[in-house]
């Protein structure tokens, strides 16, 4: 007798939970194909008109471009910063570095609204000196997003670097490699794939960020989540359904890509 057999009640609860989590997402898909001009389930009048609107609207295309620029730049920055950080931590590895890791995690602990407030004051102050870097500017949003997603990047990279055998660093040094050579010839090649998965994770996090973006932008830099936000608030437009469907597909693709990379790496190791 196996006491850990999954009973029917547990299975039912799992199904209900999954439905509760997934159905609202799934509901968006048929809504995006409605033929009507308001948010509704299609009743025989399936249509692609909202997708056509989406791709002909400069507002939507502009916000997608903005989000792409922000997410790619912020994810790149966050990946580079967290990689550099964990490499330094790996080499030094003392009580100070443990404090530094804790410091890096702070943005995770602070409630998003507080982060948003702080960043609002920061960007508006920066605007007085350099308007191109502060409030409602692309660089401002990129920097704010980088700050928010770096902790996730650091966690991902710390896990990756802890899997690197420390002896290979000793071996490299014994074979005459200096710090730079060890880093470039040994450490980074072994972190390549993890840097890629970190980038994907950071990209998704920045792509869907809304709380802070609402505070630090007004009308110059409209990211996609912000465009959806105003789309929902002003008039309930089924275009939101169309863009949501596309977003779900994009996010799922990136997640599967990340899983595939990790699976491939695990397979390579054995």
């Amino acid at each position: 007798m196996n006491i850990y057999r999954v009973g029917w009640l547990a299975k039912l609860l799992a199904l209900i939970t999954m439905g509760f989590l997934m159905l609202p997402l799934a509901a968006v898909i048929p809504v995006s194909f409605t033929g009507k001009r308001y948010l509704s389930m299609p009743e025989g009048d399936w249509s692609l008109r909202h997708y056509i609107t989406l791709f002909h609207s400069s507002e939507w295309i502009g916000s997608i471009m903005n989000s792409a620029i922000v997410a790619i730049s912020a994810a790149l920055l966050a990946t580079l910063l967290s990689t550099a950080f964990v490499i330094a931590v790996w080499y030094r590895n003392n009580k100070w570095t443990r404090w530094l890791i804790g410091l890096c995690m702070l943005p995770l602990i602070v409630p998003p609204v507080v982060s948003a407030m702080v960043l609002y004051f920061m960007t508006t102050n920066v605007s007085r000196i350099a308007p191109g870097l502060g409030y409602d500017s692309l660089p401002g949003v990129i920097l704010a997003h980088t700050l928010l997603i770096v902790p996730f990047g650091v966690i991902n990279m710390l896990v990756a670097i802890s899997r690197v055998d420390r002896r290979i660093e000793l071996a490299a040094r014994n074979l005459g490699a200096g710090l730079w050579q060890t880093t470039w010839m040994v450490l980074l090649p072994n972190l390549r794939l993890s840097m890629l998965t970190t980038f994907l994770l950071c990209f998704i996090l920045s792509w869907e960020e809304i709380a802070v973006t609402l505070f630090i932008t007004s009308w110059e830099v409209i990211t996609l989540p912000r465009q959806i936000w105003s789309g929902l608030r002003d008039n309930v437009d089924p275009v939101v359904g169309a863009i949501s469907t596309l977003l779900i597909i994009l996010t799922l693709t990136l997640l599967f890509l990340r899983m595939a990379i990790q699976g491939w790496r695990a397979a390579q190791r054995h």
Partner: protein
Amino acid sequence: MSNQSRIRLERVTKRWGATTAVDEISFDVTPGQFVILLGPSGCGKSTTLRMIAGLEEASNGRIHIGERDVTRLPPGDRGLSMVFQSYALFPHLSVADNIVFGLRSRKVPKAEQRERLAKVAELVDLTDYLNRKPAQLSGGQRQRVALARSVISEHPICLMDEPLSNLDARLRSDMRREIKALQSRLNMTVIYVTHDQVEAMSMGDRVILMQHGKIVQDGTPDELYNRPASAFAASFIGSPAMNLLPLVAGENGAVIEGEPSTPVAPLDAVGGHLGIRPEDIELRIAPGSGVPANVLSEEYLGADTIAYVAVGSHTLRVRLSGKQALTGQPCSLYWTSQNTHLFDAEGLRRDDLTPTPLPSSSRSIPRPPAVGSFQH
């Protein structure tokens, strides 16, 4: 041979906070020697090796290689190579790239790299595997890649940190011979760290036994086996381990605790231990003039049998040749005084006293023939 590969340690110490891992160690390695640093885990042998390699900084003392003081030199400038436990191969590089890594980081010309790679791959029999990744190799092949990576540097000194600990028993004995052959062929000076006394005895020209960060004994395998400097050295070398019996005062001299009838050592030895190797004890069924004993149990190992024998309040291991069924039988034990060792209360060898000879026996259970190099 040039003096370039002489290694000299002078009172080298390593401390981490309050703990002293290596405590004022000094030794001098002659060029071409195969030296074993032997000891239980945590005795400081690996730390000593890493300090020689420059991967740990010595807290005190000086390290010389050849004529140079290398104590503060970075590892790449010390003119030595190292083989690590569990190989430490670069997982992202092919076998060939692993082997030439050191040449590449030292910017040796490409043509010379290729030439030396071909030569070394031939030497360790890896020519057919050069394009594989380490993950695609067996344990023995990975071990050879690690050896090749250190040999290709053509440094006269090679440090090895438990290189065989990840291999299974059979492969290990093959690799022992391969490493030894490579060392004498290339005329390398080797310092080899291990906790395995079999590796130490079979490979070393010289064994440095360590305990608690200090050197317990420094000598040839023969000396360690036949004249252990302390009770610790005696019990660490040899398998099964040497029997160590506490001595108490008896009527005519020191006797084994619980066995007052037979004096085995002068009275001065009381408080210390009598050491006898299992292979140096002669066991005779039926009572006789030797030390009376009782066979408790036996372990049959194929070529020989280890009998567990009660003497007084202690249990001795006795090695007998072939298969023996003796459990429950009374018997007497014999040994010659030159095969026994006396240790004082601190565990140090006493050479000022000779154990009392036992009356010798004429007929006994056959013992395994003594191994040549261990004979007196």
